[in-house]
């Protein structure tokens, strides 16, 4: 493991030996240990349904691990009561893969929402802060637009401005690149990096997009079948010989992650069908 992540100093969040399943029979995560250091952007990658988003849900306290520890800002997340959990969440920023902008509000109102809910700032102060956040994502000019007037990339940037409105300690990004054109993808990627450095926050990025994320992250965890299959810095990942990671990087249709779901052989299946 790289020095950036092995050091237990200055961790914003961590998962230690976490096991989790939505049902007792089905385990989604099996003995996962991850470290999220202060000031770093860490990506979690893997195929669909491998439990990447579940890791974000564990960090946000939406679900609790069956065993193991989840800590954010030195607090054990599963042990927090509702009040403490909400206090902890005020230090988190969350960007959903849909953006999840409130459709009954304008762009300005969306970004102002967390500020209005959690602070007693004056209206003019809130206005200045909202315009600053929108300016940071390049959308100050869109403040008065309704959310249905935004393109997918713009909506994602507005959601990003809203997520950082309260200057969080830790940003959680759930598939931030999904459904974006190459230009919007590059813009969002650079914004994630720039905001992370400018606001001195830490970021956890759950994504499929290997090319875009390797450009902006400091460390990568590859998750598959509920376990960490590979990890390392972007350079280590690019040069790895691990077949799972190679399949992922090269987009090969068959490999450690099989194309076909487990099933009887084709002949057996056809014979069985004709017999019936």
């Amino acid at each position, binding site marked *: 493991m790289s020095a950036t992540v092995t050091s237990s100093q200055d961790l914003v969040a961590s998962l230690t030996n976490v096991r989790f399943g939505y049902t007792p029979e089905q385990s989604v995560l099996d003995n996962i240990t991850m470290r999220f250091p202060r000031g770093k952007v860490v990506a979690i990658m893997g195929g669909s349904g491998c439990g990447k988003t579940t890791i974000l849900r564990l960090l*946000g306290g*939406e679900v609790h691990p069956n065993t193991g520890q989840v800590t954010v800002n030195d607090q054990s997340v599963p042990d927090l009561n509702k009040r403490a959990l*909400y*206090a902890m*969440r*005020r230090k*988190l920023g*969350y960007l*959903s*893969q*849909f953006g*999840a*902008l*409130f*459709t*009954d509000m304008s762009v300005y109102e969306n970004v102002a*929402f*967390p500020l209005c*809910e*959690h602070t007693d700032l004056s209206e003019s102060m809130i206005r200045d802060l909202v315009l600053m956040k929108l300016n940071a994502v390049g959308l100050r000019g869109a403040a008065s637009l309704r959310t249905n007037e935004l393109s997918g990339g713009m909506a994602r940037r507005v*959601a990003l401005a809203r997520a950082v409105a309260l200057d969080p300690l830790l940003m*959680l990004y759930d598939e931030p690149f999904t459904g974006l054109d190459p230009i919007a993808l590059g813009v969002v990627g650079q914004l994630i990096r720039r905001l992370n450095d400018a606001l001195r926050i830490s970021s956890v990025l759950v994504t499929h997009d290997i090319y875009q994320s390797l450009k902006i992250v400091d460390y990568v965890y590859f998750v598959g079948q509920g376990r960490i299959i590979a990890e390392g810095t972007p350079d280590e990942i690019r040069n790895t010989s691990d077949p799972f990671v190679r399949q992922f990087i090269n987009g090969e249709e068959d490999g450690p992650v099989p194309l076909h779901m487990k099933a009887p052989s084709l002949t057996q299946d056809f014979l069985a069908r004709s017999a019936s």
Partner: protein
Amino acid sequence: MNMALNALRRLGNATLKTLVHLGFICRFFFAVLRHSPAAFFRFPLTMREIYFAGVLSLVIILVSGLFIGMVLALQGYDILSTYGASESLGVLVALAMLRELGPVVAALLFAGRAGSAITAEIGLMKTTEQLLAMEMMAVDPLARVAAPRFWGGVISMPLLAALFSTAAIFGAYLIAVQLIGMDNGAFWGNMQAAVDVRTDVMNSMVKSLVFGVIVTLTAVFEGFDTKPTAEGVSSATTRTVVHASLAILAADFIMTIFMFRGV
């Protein structure tokens, strides 16, 4: 024997599921009540919901009330005149509207217009992860989304029912006095003498308040309980209208037994 056992098993299973569902609704109701102070401390949120549930339902409520009153007057006059009691038409319309039709029909219309809209809105908020985003921003959706909508509906319902009954009585007046030519004084005078404020008007308000709780609780609960898919939102909206309508009719029957048994 096996078939009988299977049928019994299915019945038991369905009963258990219904009880669990009712348990969830009760817990949800108490959770909404617990978060209600927020809806009143930030009254503009509730006002917005009163506008959406109440003001925007005005057209359907007033037009339906007017037509129901007119039809009731035409039919009532036809029957009452057979017995030489056509002067009681105002009384018939007023009591029918205040005691039963006003609260019940207004609530059924409210379930179709506002209840379904509340469920669809919350269901879509869930599907597009807006509720999750709110949770992750440390804002409780029960306080921010559920409680204002619940109280917006509960406050709107009695007002809408009162307007519905008023429109119906006005419709009956148009038919009875303006069209048929009944005596204006007899129409209003008999009505004034027969309608009791406590028994009829207050009970009507109580009924519509209860229906308001039933419709909005069902609508908000179904919205939160939606499966986050297009099909899920559509079936939750349907469930709101069906469950709320049936619950309104059952609750009306029970309340009528207690309110008007001795009248």
